[in-house]
């Protein structure tokens, strides 16, 4: 057990517990906050993997912008505690069951994949997660998707205006 492993387990446990809390908490605000915690845990993982840029972008974009929007909307609607009608127990059960079976299936599949046996993830080292190589790749090899995603944003913008305008 070295520090990395301890951190890995701690962050993973933190992430999973928070994710479950997102699911089970009745109050949407709590769900949002738990989801932010998940994002932090995932950012922690990124840092463990020395993907600093993604770690920080994850916090800026997800925790800082997206979740604020969520929080904003929930507050705007002022959804009260327990106002959400619950699905029927049986549907919930089926939902959990299908999610669980998806997990089991995929885990079993991964376990059986021989090519993955013994593959290690490079922790802490490696420079590809830093901003410099990423930026370079983004503006050379990936400049086309970068530019095209601007179209995506424009359309989202136009759309938000259409939908949002009273």
């Amino acid at each position, binding site marked *: 057990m070295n520090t990395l492993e301890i951190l890995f387990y701690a962050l993973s446990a933190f992430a999973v517990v928070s994710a479950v809390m997102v699911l089970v908490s009745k109050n949407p605000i709590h769900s949002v906050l738990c989801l932010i915690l998940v994002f932090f845990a995932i950012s922690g993982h990124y840092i463990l993997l020395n993907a600093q840029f993604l770690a920080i972008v994850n916090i800026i974009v997800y925790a800082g912008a997206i979740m604020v929007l969520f929080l904003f909307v929930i507050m705007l609607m002022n959804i009260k505690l327990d106002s959400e009608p619950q699905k029927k127990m049986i549907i919930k059960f089926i939902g959990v069951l299908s999610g669980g079976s998806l997990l089991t299936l995929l885990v079993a599949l991964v376990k059986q994949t021989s*090519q993955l046996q013994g593959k290690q993830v490079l922790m802490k080292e490696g420079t590809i997660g830093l901003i410099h190589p990423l930026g370079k790749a983004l503006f050379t090899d990936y*400049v*086309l*998707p970068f530019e*095209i995603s*601007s179209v995506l944003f424009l359309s*989202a913008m*136009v*759309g938000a205006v259409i939908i949002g305008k009273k």
Partner: protein
Amino acid sequence: MNAIIISAFMGVVMMFSSWGTSSIKLQRNIGLLGMLLLIGANIAHLTGVWVIEFDTKGMLVFNRIGLYANTILFVLTFIYMWINGEEIDKVGDHTHTADYYAIFFFILCGVSVLTSFDNLLMLFIGIEILSIPLYILTGADKKNLFSNEASLKYFLMGAFSTGILLLGITFIYGATGSFHLTAPVINPTTNMPVEHFLMSAGLILLFVALNFKVSAAPFHFWTPDVYDGAPTVFTSFMATVVKAAGFIAFIRVFEIQREALGYSWFIILPFVIVSTLLVGNITAVFQRSVKRMLAYSSIAQAGFMLFALYGRSIFNNEAILLYIVAYSLATIGVFAVLVKMKDYSFESFNGLAKKHPALALLTTIFLFSLAGIPLTAGFFAKYFMLNALLTAGAGLWLLIVAIVFAAVSVFYYFRLVQAMYFTSGEPAINEIDKKYEFKLWLIAAILIVLGVFPSLLFNYLYF
């Protein structure tokens, strides 16, 4: 690339056109002009002329099929815009015409990406560019609860399927270490598909997600509600151009990648095809609203289009292109009639043949094309599909299932014909001017010309 640049550019132009002019007619005409420009640019690309020389770094690969499909989809969009121009203005609160056109152009940009991507990243971005504007168009009728619901439902389903798509892509990356479509799926030494569970799982997830996008069963359940709830003009667009682009993307992904699935491909795909045909057709029979019937029928048609995935011969491309043209034109036509109806029940069509014989005839032609009756392009579309299927060595049972459901489809399409011709009543229809009718005649003419000489469509496909 021309198409991508020009469509994005035109989108921006449309966005700002509402600043430059308040005349909706002018905006509409700018949109149409832009469409022509786009078509022209794309054809220029077909002949090797680029607006801007651009190294796509292997993100996009422009082959003839893709560009040709682009052209077809653009022409379809042009026809769509041309016909439905006035109806588009009416959606929502009548103030967003230019925005809708901008969104159309953005969608077409996504379409162009989807017809030429060579990297899963571009697939992802293309699909998103396609989907996000659609969520908006679906909800464009802001005061209408059903439109809202449709939009929300579409959005949640779409986002969910995006998640699945991404997991699939991730798995593929995990297996191959690359996002390229041509990433090694075949072991060069043994010349056999590499047995990599992660790869298979990824592909299946990708398959599922794409099925979501093209509304194939069992991932179709959003479709009826969304198509029903969306403003009718936009349903027409969604069910045609957008769906077609989805299929082209589908084929691009699985043309090569499916090797990794090996034999299981021929279990999964028929399962999906059969269930799509089953669900689409059987449910369509029981619909009371024409719009909903058309929604289900579009599921059924998707089932037919999925046949193009079965084989890998040149016939698939022909088949899917012809199918797209036939299906889309006919659907655009039917919807163009439908938007003029005051309500969408079958009963509202009663006696249409008496009051508007020409319109009834046109609708009949469109429905015939959808049903695949000869002399219309729909027949050859189905024919080419069946041919492709047979060439691919599919089991005969699959063909039989297909034709049985094709016969079932006749059942519900002809309900409309019966209502129009054989049931008397007062049709609930708005005024239709001659110009509009003329446009519809044009569609019908294309359908019939293609129904007699389908090869006209392919003359430019191979050089």
